[in-house]
């Protein structure tokens, strides 16, 4: 096992396209690091550079304490799981698992011991003599995992390994992946475009966009204090609601005003977000997580710091335990380049409501006890402590530690 360090890594393709731009990232020994971002953000390229399948245009990559820039993949002692599994179709499962070990001239007894162990761990024992064509998608996926496990490498690299599975299998494989990582404790770099996968799997998550690192942090920190509009919009499902607002202070205290609403800003916010007071009287972008809303009727216990937003539910999505309430805000949608990019993830599950005109569609996640129906009026309350504020030009989160002084 080893740490993986990327120092100022660049990847420039022929034609001058910069796929990865000055990437600095330290993946600690035994850590599960997820690289996430919309398609074309350079996450796979970064992974393939660590693997040695792509040349490094600039900077250096270290595995353990060794600079591996010019080492071929076979000398880097890492294993990779591919999105389409890439099993050798002419070999049985057993041969597939043993291939890498045979090439390393491992003794036969040791090979069969490791293959047996991996097969047992992955529940593949009865399929060892089969060829990949005779396996189901989930089984093939496990063989691909097994091929990496038997190698006992310094690190696992995984390139969207679950995206070819159906939804249910993906969830259970996600759990097994977590378990596997617990058990083996091998440094893992995992690439995905699915932010749910990123949140659930990663010890830390690295958000990339256009080859540039946006933020690296634990899933919880990414969710609670995104560094900019892009991360805020990309992480979390349903995604964060944005609106152009104005920060004002009057007799009643500070407040954000937008679309006819005026929501109080608690004093503690100014303490937490240094620099926010400079925006008093100015425009900024307000971000509210759907999960920070609640139905006033079913949230009786809340008092301090909760502001009321009376509105009408346009669409409701009942998820059993919760209801997503889509409602209209009388303000034009925020068209910052970051929010647009964050929505462009390729697998947007939320339906886009046409003909919302010049209004923005917001989502509130309320308790299922609310029983709200489309077209009904609903009194929403929102936790004003959890507001996110972004600069209208730079899109950076105001008062985020990483942005102070920037």
């Amino acid at each position, binding site marked *: 096992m080893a740490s993986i360090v990327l120092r100022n890594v660049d990847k420039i393709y022929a034609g001058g396209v910069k796929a990865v731009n000055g990437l600095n990232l330290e993946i600690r020994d035994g850590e599960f690091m997820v690289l996430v971002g919309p398609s074309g953000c350079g996450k796979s390229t970064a992974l393939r550079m660590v*693997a*040695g*399948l792509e040349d490094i245009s600039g900077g250096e990559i270290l595995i353990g304490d060794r600079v591996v820039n010019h080492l*071929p*993949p*076979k000398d880097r002692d*890492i*294993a*990779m799981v*591919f*999105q*389409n*599994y*890439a*099993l*050798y*179709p*002419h070999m049985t499962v057993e041969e597939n698992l043993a*291939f*890498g070990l045979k*090439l*390393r001239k491992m003794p036969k007894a040791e090979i069969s011991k490791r293959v047996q162990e991996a097969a047992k761990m992955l529940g593949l024992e009865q399929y060892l003599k089969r*060829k*990949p*064509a*005779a*396996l189901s*998608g989930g089984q*093939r996926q496990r063989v691909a995992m097994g*091929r990496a496990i038997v*190698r006992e490498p310094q690190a696992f690299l995984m390139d969207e390994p679950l995206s*070819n599975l159906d939804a249910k299998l993906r969830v259970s494989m996600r759990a097994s992946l977590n378990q596997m990582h617990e058990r083996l404790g091998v440094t893992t770099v995992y690439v995905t475009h699915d932010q749910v996968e990123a949140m659930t799997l990663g010890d830390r998550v690295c958000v990339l966009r256009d080859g540039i690192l946006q933020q690296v942090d634990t899933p919880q920190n990414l969710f609670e204090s995104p560094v900019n509009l892009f991360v805020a919009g990309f992480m979390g499902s349903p995604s964060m609601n944005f609106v152009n607002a104005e920060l004002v202070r009057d007799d009643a205290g500070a407040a954000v005003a937008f679309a006819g609403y005026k929501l109080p800003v608690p004093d503690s916010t100014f303490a937490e977000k240094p620099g926010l007071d400079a925006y008093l009287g100015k425009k900024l972008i307000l971000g509210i997580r759907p999960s920070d809303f609640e139905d006033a009727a079913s949230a009786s216990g809340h008092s301090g710091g909760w502001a009321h937003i009376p509105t009408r539910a346009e669409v409701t999505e009942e998820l059993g335990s919760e209801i997503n309430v889509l409602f209209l805000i009388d303000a034009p949608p925020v068209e910052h380049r970051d929010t647009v990019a964050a929505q462009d993830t390729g697998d947007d599950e939320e339906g886009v409501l046409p003909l919302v005109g010049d209004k923005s569609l917001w989502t509130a996640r309320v308790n299922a006890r609310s029983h709200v129906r489309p077209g009904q009026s609903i009194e929403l309350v929102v936790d004003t402590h959890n507001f996110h504020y972004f600069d209208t030009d730079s899109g950076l989160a105001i008062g985020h530690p990483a942005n102070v002084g920037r």
Partner: protein
Amino acid sequence: MTTLTASPAGTSNSAGALRRGVLSRIIDKAGGGLVQLVLIVLALFWLLPTLGLLVVSLRADEDNNSTGWWTFFTKPAQLTFDNYSNLLASGFTASFWNTVAITVPATLLVIGFAAMAAYAFAWIEFPGRDALFMVVIALLVVPIQIALIPIAKMYGFLGIFGSIPGVVLFHVAFGLPFAIFLLRNFFVGIPKELLEAARMDGAAEWKIFATVVFPLAKPAVASLGIFQFLWVWNDLLVALVFADTEAQPMTKALQSQMRQFGTNVDILAPGAFLSLIIPLVLFFAFQRYFVQGLLAGSVK
């Protein structure tokens, strides 16, 4: 049969149902039995000359001179293996072995070189690769006739004119462009991730070629092998130009038995049939590779 019954109309718009081919409507009405009957008749018609050749080769010379081969249907007792035993006793066996000595290396060398070249063209990046591949493609259209005289001169200079290696070399040279073209196009169809997985598993280029790409290319290699084998086995022109009498393959030996008047049918017929039987055996041995898709299950 599915290609016959599942007419393309099935996938087109609803109006296409009306425009379905007359043939497929007849097939629907008459059922599969008629189709099979037609196919059997066609197949028999196509096989007739070969069948005749077989029968002629099994009849005594005087019978062949007096009556047609179809009389054996009424008089099967006239069949004899004498022609074959005479043929084998004569010098013809030497030409059979010459054919083998030319065809087997010419096929194996073409497969070996072409596979390696195709791998490089498909998967190794080197400067001028695409230009070089265009040259290979361009060579596909060069007819062998224009090279006969220059190469004959060159062989004379090298001292291999008339020998088996000379014939083999010529066949290899002219077999390679098509072989490279065919295999390269097959290789590029192999998912890139398979090679990358092998690379991650610790395989170097040669190992990837030998343990991953080449085994996967079996269907293509088998078809190429059969084609190349047939071309060389049945070749007469190259043999006529480049092979001496000691090095002559069956085709040339048979050709030399042709007479302007009268026939040597007792030699020609069994000889021709003998030269036919080996490719047939080979074809049936490998034909399953034509239809088999070996890549199934590798990637989703």
